[in-house]
């Protein structure tokens, strides 16, 4: 007879071991999945996890790690603040899109003028766009008690339609021969979020992601507001009793996550993506949810998890081209990771007891 027993206090060891266990379990069951698809499981796993870092073409893939990881980390850091406090912004994908549209629109408005002020203005606009889009569910929640999960998610679909209308309408490249999509910002120096060190993949978004990690770390560990976030998540009544204002906390967490998602979108459109297109968004806003949980809602953890998730994206692309592994398989792989993480998380707060004997 197996029983669950609550630990007197959360296990630190398991809190860190859980993500590793989840990764291992995902590799195993992912391997089974790949085998079921008729691929060699071992070489698939190696292709996904080894090739991008140490394979023969690693010089090409390693910078990609930063390019793919930066938006994930940037968004996940923002989400983690809310998640810690029990505030569920799951519409980061929408905020990412709006941030990109705002940023690109400001840049394109100046086209073809050249000035050092254009790029900073775009950054502000991108942040503002994401922030505004996130404030919709936030304000509705504090004013009317509307569920922020549903509203923020609905706004993803609205943002996607808005993106399509922008790509086909106002922001369409007038010299684009009728093709949908905006001008390419990579060819507009003042608005281009280019590589800071050639060949490194390092762009301003990566810098922003690292700053966000440090900012979040200090906030959570040392600042009053971070403490308020943690207490609210652990015990909402105790937080209110201690003097936390729940309304302000909702506005702060939602706003910050929207702002960071908007920044991520802006850096993406001005850099790696280059232009506003109908299919500009590739799901970073949703994958970032996995990253946030995989990183245990801890800034350093998120940094590592963002790298890992970027790895599966890149590895997945390689596996797709080299082994013919379907793109969806990687999506399943990432979903699995979250499943195993949630399941293993049990051991942080509980231990298993077999019969009446002690196990530990």
């Amino acid at each position, binding site marked *: 007879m197996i029983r*669950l027993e*609550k630990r007197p206090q959360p296990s630190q060891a398991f809190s860190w071991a859980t993500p590793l266990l989840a990764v291992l379990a995902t590799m195993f069951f992912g391997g089974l999945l790949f085998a079921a*698809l008729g691929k060699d499981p071992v070489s698939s796993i190696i292709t996904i996890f080894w090739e991008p870092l140490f394979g023969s073409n690693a010089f090409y893939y390693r910078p990609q790690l930063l390019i793919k990881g930066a938006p994930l980390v940037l968004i996940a850091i923002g989400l983690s603040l809310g998640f810690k406090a029990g505030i*569920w912004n*799951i519409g980061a994908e929408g905020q990412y899109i709006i941030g990109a549209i705002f940023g690109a629109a400001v840049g394109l408005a100046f086209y073809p003028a050249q000035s050092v002020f254009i790029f900073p203005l775009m950054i502000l606009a991108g942040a503002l766009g994401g922030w505004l889009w996130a404030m*919709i569910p936030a304000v*509705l929640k504090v004013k*009317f*008690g*509307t*569920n922020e*999960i*549903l*509203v923020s*998610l*609905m*706004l993803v*679909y*609205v943002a996607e*339609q*808005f993106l*399509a*209308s922008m790509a*086909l*309408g106002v922001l369409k490249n007038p010299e684009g021969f009728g093709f949908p999509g905006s001008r390419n910002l990579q060819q507009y120096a003042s608005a281009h979020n280019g590589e800071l060190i050639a060949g490194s993949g390092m762009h301003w978004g990566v810098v922003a992601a690292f700053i966000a990690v440090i900012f979040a770390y200090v906030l959570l560990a040392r600042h009053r507001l971070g403490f308020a976030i943690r207490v609210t998540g652990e015990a909402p009544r105790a937080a209110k009793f201690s003097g936390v204002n729940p309304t302000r906390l909702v506005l702060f967490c939602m706003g910050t996550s929207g702002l960071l998602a908007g920044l991520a979108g802006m850096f993406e459109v001005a850099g790696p993506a280059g232009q506003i297109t109908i299919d500009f968004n590739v799901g970073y806003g*949703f994958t970032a*949810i*996995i990253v946030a*949980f995989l990183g245990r809602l801890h800034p350093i953890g998120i940094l590592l998890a963002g790298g890992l998730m970027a790895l599966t994206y890149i590895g997945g692309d390689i596996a797709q081209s080299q082994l013919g592994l*379907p*793109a*969806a*398989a*990687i*999506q*399943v*792989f*990432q*979903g*699995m990771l*979250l*499943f195993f993480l*949630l*399941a*293993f*998380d*049990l051991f942080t*707060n*509980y231990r298993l007891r077999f019969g009446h004997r002690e196990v530990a």
Partner: protein
Amino acid sequence: MDLSSINPVLFVAGFLVAATPLIFAALGELVAEKSGVLNLGVEGMMIIGAICGFATAVETGSPLLGFAAAAVGGAALSLLFAFLTQITLANQVASGLALTLFGLGFSALLGQSYVGVKPPRLAEVNFGPLHDIPVLGPILFSHDIVLYFGFALVVVVWAVLKYTRAGLILRAVGESHDAAHALGFRVVRIRTLAIMFGGACAGLGGAYISLIRVPQWTEGMTAGVGWIALALVVFASWKPWRLLLGAYLFGGITQLQLNLQGAGVAIPVEYLAMSPYIITILVLVVLSADKSAAPASLGRTFHASS
């Protein structure tokens, strides 16, 4: 623009069809939430139902077998959620999101070879002379059996919740799992069954999209219907009849914007396509004031400590 191209009879008949996936998905979620479980994985279970139903119908040639497979597929996926939330006591919000992310990916994987395939058609129920009644005939008596089944299921769920002991126990578990446990009810078992019912219903709803409403398979084709279904449960204050009303309202809006697109209204297509989501938000805002009908234990984790 030519509004006269919208045939009111076809429009009404169309929105009954558009509402049916919502009815299934929202009804299943309503039962799960009544037992105190918030499953945000509706979208994922729907899309799994959509592909399971589609594939089975194509392979066997029987749409009804397809629907059965969809229900099984949805329930199977929901069992994962039940395992996470009831056995390993994971956070329900996170688990629901995981279910949706996983479901979207897994369905895409399963559906690779079905893109562009035409599914077998499910015949209309033969109502004989009723079908020939002007106006009412095409609106009410020209649909497939599953649509009527959806309507009947609402009635059944309503009656079970209101009049039977099983319904009473379900509500009690959702109201206070600790009290229910103290009385000796198997909270985990009851909730798992409710979750599975929710999964089966979501699966049926998904298959209704892929087999009847569209009918074909494309990745991510549920396009947020699962999330609208979640909003619908709030809209309905956890009451089956109001859920039916809400589903018809949303079905109507969806159908209307499609018809307006077809009629070439001056509003850009993208803004029409946004409208169901925006209206969902507006409805949520209006109805969020009244939370009293929500089951008191909704979303809380249960662990029998003694």
